């Protein structure tokens, strides 16, 4: 696999208004590439595993930055850096699930430049795919990972469909648990979709991990007050304590009354291409005490339907244990 020190030749656009960015994105369509912090982008381009005609750098569009309180909740510009999210008082006060998740993305240096929009829009990290092999996701006709000899320790337990790559975003799990919605603009106007519907698995789209299409720009993430101040649990398990992707992560939100769970959201990351909401577990704990006994009694529900590959079987007990801890803690 060739590696290059310099960027390939391409046009560079640095618009300062969303409207201009939309026009350029629409004009170049699939031959254009939106870049925010660039932490997913530059690896692809420098490795020549993907190529484009134009790079559309969104980082100068101030409108896409910042955290704003609204009557319905909080709006976060898609170009807001992960560090800014971690340091936000309003998010720490009401939605610490997101700040906890953002705080363990990659490394401090990457969080300083990586954006929320980029984190949720990033491509999967299957190493076969990232090295430029012609797998299903890259337009080919086979999956290198889902074979008896495939090296698939980091890959998915659920929803494999030709592709078994796991999602790489930590904040995605938190946003789904918080019932966030995503604001998408293109030249035809604005669309708002739930975070749960924003992410797309390979059964529905083998190439894309989100519903974003050429010409679309994710401008804002909205978090409603629904879960403000709830009891949250976040945990990420990775090989290293910094600069690593999740092997499994868990994002959970609980509302309780007299120690009993009245409502919950439990979302697992890195177990399939999209954040996996564990509705079976959520239903099973409804009305039950939020304690270890409840956690232990439902933990196996979290992995019902899991299909392990040659090297990722450890994710089954890991996911079960994280669900147990989320409910017990």
């Amino acid at each position, binding site marked *: *696999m060739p590696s290059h020190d310099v960027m390939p030749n391409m046009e560079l656009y640095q618009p300062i208004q969303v409207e201009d960015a939309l026009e350029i994105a629409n004009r170049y369509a699939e031959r254009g590439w939106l870049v925010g912090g660039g932490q997913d982008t530059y*690896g692809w381009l420098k*490795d020549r595993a993907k190529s484009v005609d134009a790079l559309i750098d969104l980082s100068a569009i101030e409108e896409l930055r910042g955290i704003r309180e609204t009557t319905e909740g909080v709006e976060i510009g898609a170009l807001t850096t992960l560090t800014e999210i971690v340091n936000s008082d309003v998010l720490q006060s009401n939605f610490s699930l997101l700040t906890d998740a953002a705080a363990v993305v990659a*490394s401090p240096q990457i969080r300083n430049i990586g954006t929320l929009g980029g984190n949720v829009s990033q491509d999967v990290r299957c*190493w*076969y795919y*990232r*090295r430029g*092999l012609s797998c299903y996701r890259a337009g080919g006709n086979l999956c*290198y990972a889902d*074979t008896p*000899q*495939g*090296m698939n*320790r980091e890959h998915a337990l659920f929803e494999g469909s030709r592709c078994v790559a796991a999602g790489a975003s930590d904040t995605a799990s938190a946003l789904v648990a918080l019932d966030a919605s995503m604001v998408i603009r293109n030249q035809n106007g604005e669309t708002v979709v739930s975070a749960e519907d924003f992410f797309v698995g390979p059964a529905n789209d083998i190439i894309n991990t989100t519903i974003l299409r050429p010409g679309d720009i994710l401008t804002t993430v909205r978090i409603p007050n629904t879960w403000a101040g709830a009891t949250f649990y976040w945990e990420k*398990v990775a*090989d*290293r*304590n*910094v*600069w*690593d992707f999740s092997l499994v992560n868990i994002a959970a939100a609980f509302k309780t009354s007299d120690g009993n769970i009245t409502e919950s959201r439990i979302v697992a990351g890195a177990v399939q291409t999209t954040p996996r909401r564990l509705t079976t577990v959520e239903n099973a704990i409804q009305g039950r005490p939020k304690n270890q006994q409840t956690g232990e009694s439902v933990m196996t529900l979290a992995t019902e339907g899991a299909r392990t590959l040659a090297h990722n079987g*450890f994710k089954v007990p*890991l996911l079960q*244990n*994280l669900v*147990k*801890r989320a409910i017990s803690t």
Partner: protein
Amino acid sequence: MSRVRFRQINALRSDGYQGGSQGPVTSSFISEALAQGQREFNWEEREQLPRDLGGSKRRGIGLGIGYHGAGGRGYDGLLRITPDGILQIHSGVGNLGTYSYASNARTAAEVMQIPWERTEIHRGRSDRHLPHSSGQGGSNTVFTHARTNWVAGQDLITKMREIAAMDLGGEPDDYEIGGERVFRSDDNSVGLTYAQTAQRAIDLGGKYDGSEYPDDLNPLTQLAVQGVQGTGLVGAAKDNIPGQGQPPGNIIGFIEIELDTDTGKMDIIDYTAVADCGTVQHPKNFDNAMRGGAVWGVGLSNLERHVYDPQNGLPANTGLYQSKPPTNMDVPVDTVSQAVNIPDPQNPTGGRGIGEPTQGAMSLLLPAR
């Protein structure tokens, strides 16, 4: 039997044998290192502490031994005193980033009793007239090139005494060195400065200025001597110091970990390492090697991933982040690094190397229980 005692009984000793060929060693003090480490780490006390920390956390302690052949013999040393009185030290040792060529060069300064500021090192390119030297692989050069610098220094001293006896009378054995001079032992006012001996060597030629040199020098060293011929008093010698055996680099390590049985994640709570590497030559470099090697050992045994797809013959590590070398968040902030500091009898300055085994000791520790 305690795990420490078991290793003390079985550990390599100075009269022991090592490797596939079961050759002798120059010296080995692993048992002493184990005893020192056991005290420093409070092994016996820690072994009595509970292993179950509550919930999913378990405590483990472990120890390991790292070994690596740490040096060779038979290479060449090349030194010069130039008419300005500077000691010119020539070294063919490479630099992996440890700068051992410089720390080993201090042997020459020590032998010649000359301040470090009055020396100059020549290295890095063969047109700087470098002697035949060992490669720098981690632990190799401390033993190997302390010896070459020592023998070349002895050659310089011998020639200085001869020049002094020639010019000032008496026998070479009547003279000794000190204060950048060679002088009569019974009257230190009678002598020559190093600078004067260098000028006299140029005047005398022959073996003194490098026009002649020993036949047993490696051809590469012979070329180097030819390159410096006539520039001062030249000391060139092959390491023929008597003795046999492999100089071992030994290290023991003690570790305490906390394991989360829910997640498989492990935190290193404490790490104490004691090296048996003879006399420590360069305390700061020693400390760097000990800590750096330990971090590397954490990566090799617990974090780093060198994955190949056996079906397609493809390496998975297409980016540094996929290789997962340890970060500062994966190792303890503080570790203890000590040395037994018993001199090796076959190195005039007492040192043996300690590079690679620092990784091995940490790797062996990870099955802590």
